[in-house]
């Protein structure tokens, strides 16, 4: 089979910057992206910088879809309500929420962050690997609504500045008062001399931080990157790749498409019920989810910590004491923060109790692990109430 992503690999505007810094590059969902920057310490140093200081990620491969009705007829909101599972009607202008787009079976097209730009104007930030699929799916499923759908994915260079010192770095470059911005809220303002830049207090690391959206031309993108690096120098900022992004999100138990969520995994199994508002009215996937709920959960996602030596990895099988197969690991890695080997796995609800023993099949060896509470890592809250839900 020909993999189209191999034929035409895509690059962000900062590709030259990554390569100049000696980043190790990988093909991620058809994008040539940095996995780590060995010259500035590599994956573990990047992870620790974000937990203890600040790091910067190029996440321009993420996609952006705007859905709106110019006359604020409400059709934009109605469309968003129809295609996402959280309740966007509760969002104030300037507020964002974690949500997901579902297939009729209640399984995942993708997870998204929905931003309310205006009364009837929304921006959905989507994953890189699912961009084309997502855009087509949104176009198809909003046909019945009198709304405009714009694919803005190529318009923005998206930078994530993450870590407890992210606010110090971002505030040096941004005119709006960022300490007034609550978690999962955003504003538009001046950043690095650019006007009307979207600045959101969001991220994928389990840490405080900001995501900024600047024009995607190479000159602007490189200029903003350099200014962030400059502003961050006194706080020890390091560039961070997809490797650290993955270990950070895993410690915070955030889902990764193709692992904890996919077209074969439903909302209840993924443990994302708190972001799914069945009571808001019908949306794509809601009927199946009601039915699934009535039938009861067949498998559930748990956090595990290895007791035996060994690292659980995506796709490894899980078994019980008797050696019978009971599930599968969806993500696994050493945790740089905890110094333990952690993972997420699908197991039957009966095996999901805290402290339950689960054996992970690591290259033919049954290695013991136990079910532990998640998130594996939770930062101390500093920045006002968490209103992401």
């Amino acid at each position, binding site marked *: 089979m020909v993999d189209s992503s191999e034929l035409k690999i895509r690059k962000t505007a900062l590709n030259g910057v990554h390569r100049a810094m000696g980043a*190790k590059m990988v*093909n991620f969902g058809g994008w040539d992206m940095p*996995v*780590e920057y*060995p010259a500035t310490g*590599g*994956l*573990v140093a990047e992870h620790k910088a974000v937990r203890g200081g600040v790091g910067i990620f190029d996440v321009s491969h993420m996609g952006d879809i705007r859905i709106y009705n110019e006359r604020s007829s409400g059709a934009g909101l109605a469309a968003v309500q129809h295609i996402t599972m959280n309740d966007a009607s509760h969002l104030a202008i300037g507020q964002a929420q974690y949500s997901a787009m579902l297939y009729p079976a209640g399984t995942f097209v993708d997870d998204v962050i929905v931003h309310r730009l205006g009364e009837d104007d929304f921006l959905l930030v989507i994953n890189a690997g699912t961009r084309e699929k997502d855009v087509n799916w949104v176009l198809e499923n909003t046909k019945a609504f009198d709304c405009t759908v714009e694919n803005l994915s190529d318009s923005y260079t998206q930078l994530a500045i993450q870590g407890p010192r992210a606010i110090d770095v971002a505030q040096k470059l941004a005119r709006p008062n960022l300490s007034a911005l609550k978690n999962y809220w955003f504003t538009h303002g001046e950043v690095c001399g650019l006007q009307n830049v979207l600045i959101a207090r969001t991220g994928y690391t389990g840490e405080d931080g900001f995501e900024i959206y600047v024009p995607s031309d190479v000159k602007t993108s490189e200029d903003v990157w350099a200014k962030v690096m400059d502003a961050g120098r006194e706080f020890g900022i390091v560039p961070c790749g997809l*490797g650290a992004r*993955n*270990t950070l999100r895993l410690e915070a138990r955030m889902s990764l498409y193709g692992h904890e969520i996919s077209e074969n995994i439903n909302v209840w199994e993924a443990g994302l019920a708190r972001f799914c508002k069945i009571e808001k009215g019908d949306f794509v996937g809601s009927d199946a989810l009601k039915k699934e709920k009535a039938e009861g959960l067949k498998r559930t996602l748990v956090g595990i910590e290895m007791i035996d*030596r*060994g*690292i659980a*990895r995506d796709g490894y099988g899980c078994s019980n004491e008797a050696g019978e197969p009971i599930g599968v690991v969806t993500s696994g*890695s*050493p945790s*740089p923060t905890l110094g333990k080997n952690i993972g997420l796995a699908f197991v039957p609800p009966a095996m999901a109790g805290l402290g339950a023993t689960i054996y992970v099949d690591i*290259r033919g060896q049954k290695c013991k692990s136990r079910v532990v509470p998640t998130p594996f890592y939770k930062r101390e809250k500093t920045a006002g109430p968490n209103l992401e839900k």
Partner: protein
Amino acid sequence: MTYPAGYRYTKDHEWIEAKGDLGTIGLTDYAQSKLGDLVFVELPKVGDAVEAGKPLGTVESVKAASDIYAPVSGEVLEVNGSLKDAPEKINSDPHGAGWLIKVRLKNLAELKALMDGPAYEAYLALPEQEGSH
């Protein structure tokens, strides 16, 4: 880093230094730099048989687990036990202190199928090398 001319190399980036029928096996500098900082090593036991081209063990970085392939067939005589607590030795000294196992070769002719230092460096310089591992 240079690749010792007296070692023999595989396309999977293992090296073997053979003296008579005794061979020391390790990962090349190219391999360790591609893998990144290693955090875990799984090696065979003394007395185990390894077979040319078949996995003899595993190394893991934070990011991923990777198989190590045996450059030759033989019996494991010694295992570098210090790697259990210090797998980073493979990163810092891949062609020396980061060696993996010592074997008694079963078939010396297998060495002929492997590359010498200059041939391996030429192999690394091939454009298709980039991204193929």
